[in-house]
């Protein structure tokens, strides 16, 4: 494995762990979503980085080139990004509604208010 590959994996793992940590450790609903987004970004990198062939070009067939990078991961990740955007939009929309309903976006506060309401 070349250095580039190792580096990309290292970054992938870093982002993955960092994102997941944020999701778990943060109480703020928005920050959790940020963590989730970082976590998802790691996946994009996981797919995209290995598709890059050293010296490869975009896969437009031409006599000048003989090495092409794989286009498939890009397509997949384009889809994944769309899914990610949709998730984020929905997540934020729900957070807005939660804020309207509870007046806070701190998870423990929300739980407290539910408990008080009971």
């Amino acid at each position: 494995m070349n250095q580039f590959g190792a580096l990309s994996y290292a970054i992938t793992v870093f982002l993955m762990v960092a994102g997941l940590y944020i999701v778990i450790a943060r109480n703020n609903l928005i920050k959790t979503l940020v963590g989730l987004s970082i976590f998802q970004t790691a996946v994009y990198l996981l797919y995209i980085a290995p598709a890059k062939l050293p010296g490869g070009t975009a896969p437009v067939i031409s006599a000048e080139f003989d090495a092409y990078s794989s286009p498939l991961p890009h397509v997949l990740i384009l889809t994944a990004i769309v899914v990610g955007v949709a998730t984020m939009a929905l997540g934020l929309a729900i957070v807005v509604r939660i804020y309207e309903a509870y007046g806070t976006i701190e998870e423990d506060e929300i739980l407290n208010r539910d408990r008080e309401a009971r």
Partner: protein
Amino acid sequence: MSDDLILRVVTKILIPFIVLFALYVQFHGEYGPGGGFQAGVVAAAAFVLYGLVNGLDALRRVAPESVVETMVGAGVLLYIAVGLAGIVLGGHYLDYSVLGGAPVDGQHRGIFWVELGVGITVSGVMLKVFYLFAGRRA
């Protein structure tokens, strides 16, 4: 919303170019980098910009919410219709090659309509999201 003259003038100048660029990305998507996803977002950006500068009500006049919502559904329908056309014309679902005389023609035609559908839906969704968030009183 904003009475700043510079902003108004700059947006007025920018918007046509943004839309034009969106159309370029949309229809050149077959030959180079681009396509419906990107074009849809770019086009929506033009409207969002208009809305930010001139206010939501002005934007609602330009792009009524009902139209936007129709776009969301219509784009997907267009996509699926192309797919079903493949079946109707004797091929498989989303089989473009049966859409035209020669397979290559059909593939051009198919991807054109599919990407158009994607573009319409994406810009519709983007605008809808904008409306939903911007329309709320904090």
